[in-house]
């Protein structure tokens, strides 16, 4: 019995989630092995605080193709005799993990936020229905394959005993897919409004465009997209593309922070699907509070700087 974590590496540093995967694996109480996959990544192996590191290192592994990676990872899982295999919930592993699971005749649970045991059985928790419910899954076939949500698990401490490094054979592959070009997109300023998991929106209650920076600063601290009510885009404080509402963008983020927004029907039609709504408004009767999970009745000029600072603190320490 052991747990295998899959580390999709590139370059000279461990990927951000590698130690979180190890931490999650260690919490299961079984020996932890890692499978390090990539091209020219072997040197990273000793930095993983695990029992054994299986290394699949070959030029054919980059750029990534599921056709090439799936047999390698499936073979390595069998070789390691792991009964739990943990992947990061990255774009790459969202494709790879289910393919490996199906190749091994088992099922995966993706985007897990917690691992635990119930009645001696491993259970994997994940939010479903857009976060309206949480489900605990048990997998009855072996191995259990899961992808883990980033930042949901505490990272393992680096260092400790040097792991045993074992090279695994990279199966010769002749993939049908050919990567003909790789394009690096210019890093965007932040998430797009429509797809953002966190949105901070400002309304007329801010008083004037000179106060808009309060909203932007909070958004930056949260890594959020910035939105606005129609009154604000109408008044020309910000471009119309930021409008959240029936006639603007419809958003349904995990967290929606509405600052100085009264919550008229046309606005709520654009953000009513938000999982968690925070309302900050001076008017205790504002309609927005009827839709909010948390509310603060008060002056945003006092609330926001404190909130922003505290979020930065928490993020820095987390």
């Amino acid at each position, binding site marked *: 019995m052991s747990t295998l974590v899959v580390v999709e590496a590139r370059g000279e540093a461990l990927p951000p989630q590698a130690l979180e995967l190890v931490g999650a694996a260690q919490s299961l109480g079984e020996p932890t092995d890692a499978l390090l996959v990539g091209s020219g990544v072997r040197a990273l192996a000793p930095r993983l605080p695990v029992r054994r590191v299986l290394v699949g290192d070959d030029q054919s592994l980059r750029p990534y193709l599921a056709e090439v990676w799936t047999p390698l990872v499936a073979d390595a899982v069998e070789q390691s005799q792991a009964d739990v295999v943990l992947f990061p919930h990255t774009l790459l592993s969202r494709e790879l993990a289910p393919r490996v699971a199906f190749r091994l005749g088992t099922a995966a649970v993706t985007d897990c936020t917690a691992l635990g045991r119930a009645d001696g059985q491993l259970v994997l928790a994940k939010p479903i229905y857009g976060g309206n419910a949480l489900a605990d899954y048990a997998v009855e076939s072996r191995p259990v394959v899961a992808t883990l949500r980033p930042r949901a698990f505490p990272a393992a401490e680096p260092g400790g005993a040097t792991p045993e490094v074992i090279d695994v054979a990279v199966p010769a592959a002749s993939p049908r897919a050919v990567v003909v070009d790789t394009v690096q997109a210019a890093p965007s300023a932040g998430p797009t409004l429509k797809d953002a998991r966190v949105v901070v929106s400002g309304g*007329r209650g801010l008083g004037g465009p000179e106060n808009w920076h309060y909203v932007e600063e909070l958004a930056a601290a949260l890594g959020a997209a910035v939105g606005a009510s129609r009154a604000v885009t109408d*008044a020309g404080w910000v471009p119309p593309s930021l409008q959240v509402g029936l006639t*603007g963008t419809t958003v349904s983020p995990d967290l929606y922070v509405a600052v100085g927004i009264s919550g*008229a029907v*046309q606005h709520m*039609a654009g953000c009513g699907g938000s999982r968690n709504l925070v309302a900050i408004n001076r008017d205790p009767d504002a309609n927005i509070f009827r839709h909010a999970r948390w509310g603060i009745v008060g002056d945003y000029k006092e609330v926001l700087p404190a909130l922003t600072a505290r979020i930065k603190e928490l993020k820095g320490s987390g």
Partner: protein
Amino acid sequence: MNGLGLGVENLVLAIALAFGGGLFLNRAWHLYRLMRLGRPTSRTDHPGERLALFLEHVVGQGRLLSEPYAGVMHALIFWGFCVITVMTADMLLTGLVPGLTIPWIEQNPVFLVSLETFEALVLIGVAMAFYRRLVGKPRRLTYTGDALIILSLIATLMVTAFLATSSQMAIARQDWSRWSYISSLIAPLWGSPSPTVSRFFWWAHVLTVLGFLAYLPWSKHLHILTSAFNVWLRSTAPKGQLPWLDVEGKLERGERLGAGDVVDFTWKDHLDGYTCTECGRCEAQCPASRTGKPLSPKWLILDLKHYLLERGPALLPADGMELPRGDLTAAATANPPTKRMVGDVIADDVLWDCTTCRACMEACPVFIEHVPKIIEMRRHLVLDESRFEADARRLFENLEASGNPWRFPRATRGDWARGLGVPVLGEGGVTVEDVDYVLWVGCAGAHDERYQRVMRTIVGLLQRAGERFAVLGQRETCTGDPARRAGHEYLYQLLARENVETLNRLGVKRIVASCPHCFNTLKAEYPQLGGLYDVVHHTELLARLIAEGKLEPRQADERQIVYHDPCYIGRYHALYEQPRDVIRAIPGVRLGECGGGCHHNRAMCCGAGGARAFMEEKRGTRINHLRLLQAMEGQPGAVATACPYCIMMLEDATRTKGVFDELPIRDVSELLAGSLDADSRNGQTGT
């Protein structure tokens, strides 16, 4: 006529008449054939109503006179022409066959006095028109040479008439000549002219008439011939009722559903184009034009007319004497235009700009029907081409999914009334026998937090007045108005059928609606689906309850209240006074009006009609901002209205303009409730 080149002159006149008349008839026949490319429509019902309107607006020049300068100017020319045409006909008759005259008129003092008077008045009218075009230059007019040519021709006609008559008089004075009192004054100036002089002016007059006739059908002054017909042939359907569309039948037959080509409009739509005089009264009233949007109702009509003239000939039968017949869709499809009517000639944006407020139709002196054409073309965009912006699509999908424009779950439609004790028809044994009417809530009343407060206020007022009413709860769905006005007739019919079935199953006969859009659809449009109800607006009901003493406003309200007319109860149903009566009943209130004369039938739309409430206003400036400014010209302490979307738009405007706290926007019912004593505020949760 006497003795001067007798036979030859008659012959020349006959030839000239044949030539001028021939040119006229040739062009008129062409225009008539083009008009007949349109689909059939019956416009002969309600003759009495048609006659009354004809007398008021053609003979009486009613709508024209709503603008004093232009109205008087036009009426002088119009009435003058009516009289002078009799004289002209007489001249031509006599000219063709000497001695042949229209009986009774030639020596009739009354006719002669009127003739000369009107000739002079026409000259005054023409002078006013020249002044307006050359000096005053109002913005709504189109400035072309055409108008100046026509005005010159008219002036020439009058001048030559005076000169011909007076010179003739100088030659041979008759005893009845004195009735031609203006010519009598001029006659002495001639001395003893040669008869040729008189003949010259006679010929000048007659040839000008013939030239005018030949030129007329090429000019915007074609309206001289078509206006009377156009007014007579106007639609007598309720103003708020859009033409029925047999969606499934047309699909079966492979026909287009909306107007995408000239053959998809009715012949009356084409007659509208011929009748447009480019006066621009529609444009001056249009909220889209006034806020700098691409839509101008005037240019819409003119562009369609020009498109008919350009596109139509290719679709006419080869035989020039034959009229187009039968369904022409196939012919039009087989012979596609180089420029599409919708998209190339009339841009999509132009069609989406319309709020269907009907201000253009109300302003048009010749009763051109702009809004139905726009809806027909929207139908083409939506149903034939599936071409519309993301906002419209979201509206359609929300209506499909949840029966309201915001996609609130249907199950929550009745939640607003919790704790108010309003019976729900069909629930808890409540039947139609137990109540006098159904209160129609509408999507805004059910889901918009702001208008929920208004609904609760209305409920409180009705309960206080001891009214027996119920609501439909979750059984109610969107009436379909936004879908229909956005051109999605299919979706409209789905929603409307559902409501009609519900209402008919429950046996509902009487309905009180608060949303003017619901009100209009229930009252004017559901009859097309077999839904016949007695529908009143809540302001009508409240005015009646006050008159009956069932509601007594006592608390004084010292504010100046400016009332904004919602289009769908105002222009569409002429409910101008009932809401004002409610306001007037409040002690101490001063009733004000929006500035610039923009009230009653000239009230400007708030910008929400025609499904615009659910679409972003991307072009031009904001209609609601302009409307708020007009209201603020009335120095209001509060603005009253009677429509959820007007409240939404005007409140939005007060927020953007930063006057939300100082200038409350209130439903008429909220003002009334505030004026009853304290215990009447049942359900009102404060504003």
